[in-house]
Structures are given as structure tokens and as C-alpha cells.
């Protein structure tokens, strides 16, 4: 099938057969070399645009000063973090989002996926598309939509007032607790469908007859969910937990566009604060680099912990 379509197209790039047979070793070497050529662009880009800057940031995090006149300062930048109330607040905020939003979103995604996995369910495609649809929106776009919905003169307030629940518009975004809750609601809205697609993909590798057998044996839905679905989906769940943790600790767009970090930094994320420190006012790249390495350490530690827990055989 393939050979036929190639004969017309091979532009003499391939060398004659006898030649290759005589030099088997050199052919293998040639393949190995081709392999490296295939890898080269991708690997070089990652080395120069991820690895190298990361090392440079690590060095900078031990320096202080502005521009080219930076001097070594040991771990002063890291010590300064413990004095920086706003950065500590931003760490707290990110963990608040992480602890509440990630479990709620992933459990919702799992429930939705296991409901959609039922082959007898009708309108399956419609439900799946609708729930996945929020993923089609840009992060800035949905942040602005939610900001408008929850504004003092926004839709949620006018609905609550029309229903007589509220007398006056409540400014969700200017109260520290409700501002954080709005961010969490927005995040759940945007990412539940995305995670659901991963679970649906994982569920396709599980024979549906297992579920039917369990039902015949008298297992109820909750048993089936915890004793079949969750254990069999464990690798996929681990993947989504790691991805969501990483994403939540790096939140930026929502903090900037939904609440602008406010009120009074009550909802600001670590990335947002670091960006402000680096590009607004007098930049101190030493200190911002130190803060960004704190995020790196958190992401790495959490990923390792999660892999440890996920690998445990029970």
C-alpha cells in the first residue's frame, strides 16, 4: 500500500540497495545520526529557551541590584521572601485555589465522564460538546466574561435583585472572600470539561462489561465509582492532578483580568505578583527570580509527592 505511492515520489534521495547491504553497520550509524538530526531543532530550542534561562534565573536569584550592576548577595533574596507580606499572601491565595478548586473540578469531571460513558445514554455528543465548550474560550476572554457577570451592575446581581434575594448590588469582586470564590467558580467552569475529556479517553480503555458484571453482582453506583472507575483510571487521574496543580500554582491571566489581584491583593496569585515586581516600577530581577524559584520548588515537590501517592499499590 505504501510502497506503491512512494515509487513515483522518491526523487532519487535514497541510495541503491546493494550499497546499503554491503555497509550494514554504517546504515545503523546513519539511522542513529538521522535520529539526532530529527531531535536537534526541538532539543536545541528547549535547551536554549528553557534550560539556559532557568540556570540564568537561578544565578540571578543570588544577586541584587539593577541592570548590569548586579552583585552577589547570597541567600538574601530568599530571606526577604519571608518578610514580604504580599508574596506570602499570594502563596496563601494559590494554595486556597488549589485545595478547593482542584478536588471539586476533578471530582465533577470524573462524575460527568462516568455518566457520559454509559453506552445507553442519549444525546451523549451534545452533552459532551456543551461541557467541553468552555475550553474553546481564551483565558483572558472568560476572565472578562466572569468579571462582567459578577460586577456590581452585572448579570448575577441584577438576577439576585430581580428575585428579591438582594436589595442592592453586591460587589463580589471587592470583598476578599467572594473575589476568591469567583475566581474558583470561573476556574471550575473553564477546566472541568477539559479534564473530563481525559477521563473519557481513559474510560475507553476499560471494558464496559466490567460495569455490567458489577451491576449484576448487586454493586451500587457509589461502589462502582470508587471500586472500579477510580482505581482503573488512576494513571489518568494522577496526570490531571499534576497538570492542575502545576496550572493553579502558575495562575496569571485570571488574577490580572478577573480581580486584578484585588481587593488589596486578597486574590493576587504568585505569578501576577512576580510580574508586577519585574515589569512595573523599579525592577529587582534578583528578587523576582528568587520568588519564581519558590514556585518551581513547590511544583516539583508537589509533583513528586503526588507521584509517590499515585504509585502506591494498595
Amino acid at each position, binding site marked *: 500500500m*505504501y*510502497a506503491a505511492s512512494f515509487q513515483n515520489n522518491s526523487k532519487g534521495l*535514497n541510495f541503491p540497495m546493494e550499497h546499503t547491504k554491503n555497509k550494514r553497520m554504517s546504515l545503523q550509524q546513519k539511522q542513529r545520526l538521522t535520529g539526532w538530526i530529527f531531535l536537534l531543532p526541538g532539543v536545541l*530550542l528547549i535547551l536554549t529557551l528553557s534550560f539556559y*534561562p532557568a540556570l540564568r534565573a537561578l544565578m540571578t536569584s543570588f544577586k541584587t541590584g539593577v541592570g548590569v550592576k548586579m552583585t552577589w548577595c547570597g541567600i538574601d533574596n530568599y530571606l526577604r521572601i519571608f518578610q514580604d507580606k504580599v508574596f506570602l499572601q499570594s502563596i496563601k491565595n494559590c494554595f486556597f485555589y488549589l485545595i478547593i478548586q482542584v478536588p471539586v473540578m476533578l471530582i465533577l469531571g470524573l462524575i*460527568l465522564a462516568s455518566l457520559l460513558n454509559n453506552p445507553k*445514554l442519549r444525546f451523549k455528543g451534545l452533552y459532551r460538546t456543551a*461541557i467541553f465548550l468552555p475550553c474553546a474560550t481564551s483565558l483572558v476572554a472568560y476572565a472578562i466574561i466572569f468579571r462582567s457577570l459578577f460586577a456590581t451592575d452585572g448579570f448575577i446581581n441584577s438576577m439576585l435583585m430581580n428575585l428579591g434575594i438582594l436589595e442592592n448590588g453586591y460587589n463580589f469582586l471587592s470583598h476578599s472572600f467572594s473575589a476568591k470564590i469567583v475566581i474558583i467558580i470561573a476556574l471550575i467552569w473553564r477546566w472541568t470539561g477539559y479534564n473530563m475529556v481525559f477521563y473519557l479517553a481513559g474510560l*475507553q480503555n476499560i471494558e464496559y462489561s466490567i460495569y455490567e458484571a458489577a451491576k449484576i453482582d448487586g454493586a451500587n453506583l457509589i461502589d462502582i465509582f470508587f471500586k472500579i472507575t477510580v482505581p482503573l483510571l488512576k494513571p489518568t487521574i494522577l496526570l490531571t492532578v499534576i497538570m492542575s496543580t502545576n496550572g493553579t500554582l502558575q495562575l496569571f491571566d485570571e488574577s490580572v483580568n478577573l480581580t486584578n489581584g484585588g481587593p488589596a491583593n486578597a486574590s493576587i496569585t504568585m505569578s501576577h505578583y512576580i510580574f508586577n515586581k519585574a515589569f512595573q516600577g523599579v525592577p529587582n530581577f534578583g528578587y523576582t527570580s528568587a520568588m519564581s524559584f519558590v514556585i*518551581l520548588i513547590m511544583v516539583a515537590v508537589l509533583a513528586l509527592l503526588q507521584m509517590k501517592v499515585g504509585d502506591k499499590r494498595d
Partner: protein
Amino acid sequence: MTSKVTNALAYVFLTIAAVLSVFPLVWMIIASTNRSVDVIAGKLTFGGNLAVNYSNLISAQDVWKFFMNSGKYAILTTVLSLLVCSMAGYAFEIFHDKYKDMLFVLILMTMMLPFVALMVPLFQMFSSAKLLNTSLGFLLPSISTPFLIMMFRQSAKSFPVDIIEAARIDGLNEWQIFFRMFVPTMRSTYAAATTITFMNAWNNYLWPKVIMTKSNSQTMPMMISSLTSGYHTDYGMLMLAVLITTLPTAIVFFILQKSFAEGITGAVK
């Protein structure tokens, strides 16, 4: 509890989830056709103010310039990224040896690097290389991503070794095997990769905010973000701008939705 009741509950739950998922987007579309006062009043039917919103928007911002910028950046990123990452992922699987496997682990580890850690050194490197406010500056950091390389490596695992051997005996070189056999058979992986890369590039906000210092080279997400900074918000106009920003990713999403799910299935296996 009978199965009929649980079935009904399943439909109720799914319907609520579907409605909540779609509502903010429907609200956005409706708001873009209404006057700001009607949007504030909570009007939920289409209005006749779309043309006025549009003319307000284009007099406030040069929308189509930003749209073209975003489109150019996103398309270039997607094309280059798919080429570079699929070649790397394929090579990590098909030509793997001890050194390449070690390199792969190293590359996977860069996934954990938060972008804010790279942002400052990248900014310094790009400004000394005169890449600020250029397309190349936008796309270079997003061409090669560990996630896509991993995805293509995973899909290369399902590419039969026998076919490669047969093709080699038929006299095809490694480039021909890759471009004429691997690429066409892995259509769904490419579709999933296109969806992910195009959306990420179109939606990218932090990096262009760092390097696009001139308004001429800015992107759609940056433009809509700046629309909200005023004291008084014109919701009709704002939602029209948000709608225009959402359209390209929504179109890509609808065209590639089915293959996206298939591609993810291949990657999760």
C-alpha cells in the same frame, strides 16, 4: 432505588452541567447585540445594537490589526511547533538509545519550570537579540514543548516497527518514512496537537505582555484586557470584542473536536 430514578438523575445532572457550561457564552453573544444599559438590566434576548457596538469598538481600538497579529503568531507557532515536536517525539521513540532516553527525561523535567522563572532571562536575551515586538520573538519560546514531544512519542509507540523495516528494505530513507508514512497515519494526534497549540498560542497572554512593548505588535487578549481598564465599561462593546477573540479558537475547536478526543485517547493509553 430503581435504575429508572438513577437514570433520570443522570440526565438532570448532565443537563444542569451542560446549561451552566454554555450559559456564559450565550450571555456573551446576547450581550454583544445589546446596549450596555440593557446588558446591565439583565436582558436575555437578542437586541439590535450589534452594528453600533461594532462601530464603537473599531473607533476605540484597531481590532482587526490585533486580530491579524494574533492570527499570524498563532498560525506560525502551530505549523512550526507541530513539525519540530513531532520529529523530536518520533525520533525519541523510533531511534531511541541510552543517551536519547536520558535526554528525554531531562526534557520532561523542564515541564515543571514555571514560566515566570524564565520570563525575565528570556526578556533580557530577546531584547539583546533585538527580538522584542517581532513574530519570531513571540513564537520561539512556544515552538518546542515537552508536552507535545511526549504526546508524539506516545503515538509513535503505536506505529508498527515492521512497516518501518519494510519501507527501509523498499529503499525509503528515514525522512521519507517520517513524512510519507508517519505523518499521514497519525492524523488524529496532529489534530489534537493543532488544537492545543493553536489555542495556547492564540490565548497566550503573559509572554506577549512581556515582549510586545509597542501597541502595533500586540494581540487580541491584550487588546480586550485593555478595554476593561476604563472607569465606565460599555458591556455591549466589550462582549463583542470578547466574542471576536473567542471565534477563531471556537472554530478550530469545532472542526477538530472529534480528532482531539481521539488524539488524547492515544496519548492517555
